[in-house]
């Protein structure tokens, strides 16, 4: 009896460890995207991003300027941030370092009473400042989202049309070289895509498709056509031929049967294939770097954001934007993941 309780405790301890090992990094990563620059470099810092800051402002009579001080909880004291006479300087500082957006006039009015003695005030932080700024400083970000979606859309279109035709042929017809075909489809999926991307550059330039999303999609589709063929093959195999025959007995022709019976049953597999195609295009960076450096996708913009802005909280905001759609789609396809590498099913 005691033994059972012990093993149960150990079991749930292990489960908890796994859950924490996964969720803690994600939690702090997402929360980093809400830090202001000041918080990012504050150490040690509170576990959660601030929603507001408390300030003390006093008037320096010797130099005729305001001193802006921030309340630091760990030391229970106020720390000097900057001194200036111009509201403009405070506006810039508050915005850049603390994600507080205020107008000059507002600051002037708020600070003025400090001339008669120290004042205390609280400013609310703009929690989504990093997200807004990510789009404004990397001026390519909005375009990049559209690009990523377009690359994904083209990839879905190409790989679904071509791949599902091949998948249907493999499931429903006997032909010479079928075995060899399915082995080569596997080989395509194992193939390092960089080895296709680099030489493709020359062809795309010739066709005027470098730095375009169709160009990228052409490369992404290489592995996804094979994947779609695999998934749809197993889906069509699962749809019984008798059902199709029954439909023909009842007077439908082959084309009607395909569109009214077979296709609707295959929809889940087609959705899964499109989601994979989406993720290939959405997550890739190396092919986009090689083929579309001047017209980047979101993944590429986020990759460059870390280097160019140097502000990690902005890169984090970009990365959260990049992560969310991928998360949603991964969960939609999770039941099809195994078909990606063969015939195992859930």
């Amino acid at each position: 009896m005691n033994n059972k309780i012990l093993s149960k405790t150990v079991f749930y301890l292990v489960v908890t460890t796994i859950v924490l090992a996964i969720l803690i990094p994600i939690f702090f990563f997402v929360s980093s995207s809400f830090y202001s620059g000041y918080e990012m470099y504050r150490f040690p810092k509170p576990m959660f991003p601030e929603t507001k800051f408390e300030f003390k402002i006093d008037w320096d009579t010797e130099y005729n300027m305001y001193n802006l001080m921030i309340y630091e909880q760990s030391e229970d004291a106020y720390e000097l941030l900057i001194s200036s006479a111009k509201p403009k300087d405070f506006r810039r500082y508050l915005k850049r370092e603390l994600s507080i957006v205020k107008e000059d006039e507002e600051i002037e009015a708020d600070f003025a009473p400090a001339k008669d003695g120290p004042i205390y005030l609280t400013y609310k932080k703009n929690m989504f400042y990093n997200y807004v700024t990510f789009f404004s400083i990397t001026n390519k970000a909005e375009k990049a989202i559209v690009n990523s979606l377009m690359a994904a859309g083209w990839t879905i279109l190409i790989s679904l049309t071509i791949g599902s035709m091949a998948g249907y042929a493999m499931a429903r017809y006997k032909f010479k070289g079928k075995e060899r075909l399915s082995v080569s489809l596997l080989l395509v999926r194992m193939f390092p895509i960089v080895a296709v991307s680099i030489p493709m550059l020359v062809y795309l330039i010739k066709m005027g498709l470098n730095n375009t999303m169709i160009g990228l999609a052409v490369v992404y589709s290489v592995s996804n056509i094979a994947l779609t063929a695999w998934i749809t093959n197993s889906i069509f195999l699962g749809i019984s031929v008798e059902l199709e025959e029954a439909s023909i007995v009842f007077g439908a022709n082959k084309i009607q049967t395909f569109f009214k019976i077979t296709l609707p049953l295959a929809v889940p597999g087609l959705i899964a294939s499109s989601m994979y195609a989406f993720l290939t295009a959405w997550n890739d960076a190396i092919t986009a770097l090689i083929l579309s450096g001047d017209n980047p996708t979101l993944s590429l913009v986020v990759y460059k954001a870390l280097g160019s802005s140097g502000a990690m909280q902005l890169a984090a905001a970009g990365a959260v934007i990049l992560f969310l759609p991928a998360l949603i789609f991964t969960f939609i396809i999770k039941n099809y993941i195994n078909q990606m590498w063969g015939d195992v099913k859930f």
Partner: protein
Amino acid sequence: MNKKFKKLVPYVLLTPALVYYLLFWIRPVLRAFVESVTDLEGKLSFSNYINVFQDSYFKQAFSNSIIFAVFSVILSFVLAFLVALLLNRKFRGANLLLFIALVPMAFPPTAVAILWKTGFTTFGWINNILVQLNLISEPILWLTAKGNEALFFLIFIDTWTVMPSVMIILLAGLQNLNKEYEEAAVILGASKFQVIKDIIMPILRPTIVTAVILRMIGALQVWMIAVMMFGYGRVPFLVERIAYYTDIVPMLENSYKMSLTYSVVVTIIVLVSVTAYLRANRTKQGGVV
């Protein structure tokens, strides 16, 4: 006539895929190979390979890629197998745990690199947690790691992302396993460990092979996390070199040839490792039976 037509249908359906692969897979790959063995004037020459092998980063990039792949496969496989065994038991919350375990898989490589960057930077959340828990008093400078230390650091953080994809394949295999073999073994007095080693592992072999190959191919092409954590050149990898020649020095006369030749080298390594692994497995399997 109708019968003849019917025989043609599968070929008609397959033609687009075949044409596509001829144009956008076989043709570029052949071109890459041909270009890698010709110089800038188009004459046959091994100068590209000589340049790559003499690249001051090549040796390091080559051995790092191999070490990374070997240890990443081992580490993620062991962890994934344990988690899969755990999830295969029926317990309350098993589905929720599966859901959570899949989240890291959803991270695009760029996002996962930034996740760890926000953690391991000097004032990042990892040092912050350690200080708050009173485990350290001064922040640790994680990102100054060099050489093998930095390499294994990358292997560990990369495992966080890749483990679920290995796990879910193994889990599917486990779920398809016929429970009767296990039960029979237990009745005959086998221990839990024996059941795993002598019953589950051998039956699961095809699934394991699939999972390992998948991870191996991915690991041999690692680059993003290394570049985002340490910058170019600190922990060079083969694909990292391709990114370097494409992104950092695209204007050099031989940048294109360098990245192209590197890509051929990566391809050869991937294909050779996969084939070698498959062959090794086949002989092993033959030995068992």
